[in-house]
């Protein structure tokens, strides 16, 4: 690397020139690698990038400026000028972010500059799970991986397991090629971001492949069943933008929001009406509302629905679903009437908290759009906008990795943390054959790895990615623009090297090849391919035209699996605004960002309703022990004024056994109590509910809140 830059400099007479320093941000986006020689102090450059924090794949821009860092070379300390990323913002040209960004998106910078990043490859020296490693050279590490892989490929390629994120990207396409060349099964996704139930429901209700897109910005009434779309579901930036427009973007027209969820999430905060549905009974609620629509609001669209759909809703016993869901018949009637009377209603079906029957619940919720005639209509629900790149085919699915984990001869863990998100994975990882992690950190799962081959940070890499939802066909594609800070290697390059070493060579998919393929497929003779690729990279990706509306394909609801009724206290885990599924916990900005509901910093609380708290004799900050059949945890209480009586919630995020100085050993992981259950149809990780007992605990702990005041008694003082 150094030599190349060195030679380049000597070879060019104009070294040091920087293009487009002034003017508007959008005009000065520069897509090429800034070598440290080409950046002047005090001059900002903006480069297109992609947020890798969740599957929404927001297009971003990164502000790059000269900075100095200290490094050690042969025992001597030096200052070194580097091109540093100073700030992330949304890319205005991107249809998903529209130039905006969420809290986690901003904090991606603290993944790049996290002090606990691995400086190079590591080899385990302690027991599995202990987290003790020593440095190893890349050459030696790759040799070891290649040897293990060659053995597995020769004996039983079925025992090669690759766990990764549920993204449709150049990365997942490269992984798919890698596994295919080995004859190994496709990669599996781990974690809630897979939206497996949403995808399955979309297939059943609409006959679509992928996550539907809700046009809430043009709706007059939004009913959300289980989708906390303002707090992190699928694409919080896109849906927050759309929500803002729905409320105040149209003259004379203000859309209304009814939100059904078993937790007082951000979406519930903002709703005109919150339907506090009993956890796991979202299906009952959707069926009840559908029943009222069919039996009491026979509109033309209802009449057009298929017999199967009508039959599904007609047979519902309203009293029974009302009792199960905790939502009164009256509230269901009012909601159905509001939907029937609205000029442009839409029902958003999501499982922010995945249940055992989420695919069924979401299918029923999606089918409400069929009853309302809102499929493919403006302000209704639209099919996913296929990017045309084919990357979607490589988006890993959730189903069925657990059983294979313990028996696997070699396990690759790439961008996911099963030991955190699926508690039993830790035990299975102890029994698995060779475990190879690509994590840039020693996280909960990497602690079990035999070898850690740290990937570059997402901000240091070029890649192409299809957003989970996009208003138009789109693929984000960027090239790397800063040099990696450390002796890390791109996982795509590692896979290519390993495949080569064992005689099963593959070619990596990179952003330019994704765009090149797209150009070829579009058959546009107007532009030369290289020019097309260059131009799209400059803009951070390609965005197509919005397609005309498209109605539903085949609707095949199938039979529904009703959730069993449960008594006693119910416990559920949820992905939080600040930490998502847990990956945000090592970023100090997010640790110190107050939790929206509880105002807690540097810790997550067990959210208990006031009645239950009174019975237990606990107040804010009291330590409690939460116990289920699967496990237990101890954490401070937050007496949540809006918690459903008898429902205990806790955010994912804390309770990492290993994840650097800001996250390790802090607080508790709610999955320990939720245990390991899976969504019946898709295998997605379930977030509860489980029945629990609560008891006061003697253990030490505290709740740090920015504001200890829940009520506006002394106005606006914290």
């Amino acid at each position, binding site marked *: *690397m*150094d*030599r190349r*830059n*060195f030679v380049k*400099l*000597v070879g060019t*007479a104009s*070294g*040091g020139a920087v293009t487009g*320093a002034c003017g508007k941000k959008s005009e000065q986006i520069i897509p090429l690698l800034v070598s*440290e*020689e080409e950046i*002047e*102090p*005090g*001059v900002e450059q903006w480069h297109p990038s992609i947020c890798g924090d969740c599957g929404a794949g927001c297009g971003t821009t990164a502000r790059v400026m000269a900075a*100095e860092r*200290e*490094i050690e*070379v042969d025992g*001597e*300390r*030096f*200052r*070194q*000028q*580097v091109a540093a990323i100073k700030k992330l913002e949304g890319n205005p040209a991107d249809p998903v972010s529209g130039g905006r960004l969420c809290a986690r998106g901003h904090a991606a910078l603290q993944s790049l500059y996290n002090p606990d990043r691995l400086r190079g490859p590591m080899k385990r020296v302690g027991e599995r799970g202990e987290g003790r490693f020593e440095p190893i050279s890349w050459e030696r590490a790759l040799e070891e991986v290649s040897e293990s892989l060659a053995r597995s490929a020769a004996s039983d390629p079925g025992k090669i397991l690759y766990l990764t994120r549920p993204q449709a990207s150049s990365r997942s396409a490269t992984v798919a090629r890698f596994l295919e060349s080995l004859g190994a099964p496709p990669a599996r996704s781990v974690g809630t971001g897979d939206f497996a139930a949403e995808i399955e429901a979309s297939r059943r209700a609409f006959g679509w492949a992928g996550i539907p897109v809700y046009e809430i910005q043009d709706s007059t009434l939004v009913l959300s069943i289980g989708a906390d779309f303002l707090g992190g579901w699928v694409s919080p930036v896109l849906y927050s933008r759309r929500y803002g427009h729905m409320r105040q973007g149209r003259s004379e027209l203000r859309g209304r929001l009814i939100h059904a969820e078993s937790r007082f999430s951000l979406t519930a905060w903002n709703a005109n009406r919150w339907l506090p549905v009993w956890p796991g009974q979202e299906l009952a609620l959707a069926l009840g509302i559908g029943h009222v629509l069919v039996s009491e609001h026979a509109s033309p669209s209802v009449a057009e629905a298929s017999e199967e759909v009508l039959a599904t809703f007609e047979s519902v016993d309203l009293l029974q679903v009302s009792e199960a869901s905790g939502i009164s018949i009256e509230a269901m009637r009012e909601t159905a009437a509001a939907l029937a009377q609205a000029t442009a209603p839409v029902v958003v079906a999501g499982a922010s908290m995945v249940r055992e029957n989420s695919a069924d619940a979401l299918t029923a919720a999606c089918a409400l759009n069929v009853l309302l005639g809102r499929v493919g209509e403006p302000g209704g629900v639209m099919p996913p906008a296929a990017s045309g790149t084919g990357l979607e085919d490589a988006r890993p699915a959730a189903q069925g990795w657990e059983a294979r984990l313990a028996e696997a001869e070699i396990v690759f863990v790439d961008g996911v943390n099963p030991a955190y998100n699926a508690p039993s994975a830790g035990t299975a990882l102890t029994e698995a054959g060779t475990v190879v992690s690509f994590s840039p950190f020693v996280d909960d799962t990497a602690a079990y790895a035999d070898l850690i081959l740290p990937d570059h940070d997402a901000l240091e890499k070029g890649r192409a990615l299809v957003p989970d939802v996009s208003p138009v066909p789109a693929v984000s594609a960027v090239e790397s623009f800063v*040099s*990696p800070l450390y*002796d890390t290697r791109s996982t795509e390059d590692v896979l290519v090297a390993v495949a080569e070493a064992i005689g099963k060579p593959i070619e990596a998919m990179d952003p330019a090849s994704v765009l090149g393929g797209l150009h070829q497929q579009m058959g546009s003779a107007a532009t030369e391919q290289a020019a097309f690729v260059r131009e799209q990279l400059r803009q951070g990706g390609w965005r197509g035209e919005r397609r005309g509306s498209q109605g539903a394909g085949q609707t095949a609801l199938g039979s529904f699996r009703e959730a069993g009724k449960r008594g006693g206290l119910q416990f559920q885990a949820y992905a939080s605004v600040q930490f998502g599924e847990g990956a945000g916990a090592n970023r100090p900005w997010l640790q110190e960002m107050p939790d929206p509901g509880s105002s807690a910093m540097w810790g997550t609380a067990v959210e208990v309703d006031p009645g239950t708290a009174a019975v237990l004799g606990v107040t804010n900050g009291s330590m409690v022990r939460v116990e289920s059949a699967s496990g237990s945890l101890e954490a401070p209480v937050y007496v949540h004024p809006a918690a459903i009586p008898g429902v205990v919630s806790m955010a994912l995020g804390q309770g990492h056994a290993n994840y650097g100085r800001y996250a390790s050993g802090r607080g508790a992981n709610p999955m320990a109590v939720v245990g390991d259950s899976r969504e019946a149809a898709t295998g997605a990780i379930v977030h509860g509910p489980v029945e629990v007992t609560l008891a006061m605990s003697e253990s030490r702990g505290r709740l740090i809140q920015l504001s200890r005041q829940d009520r506006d008694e002394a106005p606006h003082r914290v």
Partner: protein
Amino acid sequence: MRRALLLPLLALPAQLAAEQPLGFSHRAHIERANMQCVDCHTGAVSRDVAGIPSIRKCMLCHQFIATDLPEVVRLTKYWEKKHEVPWVRVYGFKRQAAVQFRHAPHARAGIQCSKCHGDVGAMTVAVKAVNHTMGGCVSCHRENQASDDCLACHF
């Protein structure tokens, strides 16, 4: 190591008459080579920061020009070791001053380099000819009807 050009850590503090690692002569470059300040301090007119040139810039010429001068020989040694020259900064504000200075607007207002930096063209190794005090800044701002709001510089 990945990157080539390194600066020893020691060379940080500003000094009144800085002991520089090389006997660089500003005069020779201005008078004999007929160069402009901005040829090396590229940001002085159009950017926030004037900038101290990298050794790469020096070597663009000194690979070929005056290669036998003793100071150029010493310069070449840094180059061969892939080290930056650890220049000692002559001007600059302490972090505690919380001052934000931008060169460009001053150049645009027609303020000559010498107003704040003295006649560097007549110097060999640069010395601190002008003391950058708040009084100096404020009186010049007032003379030129520039802002004397604290926030013009302190943020």
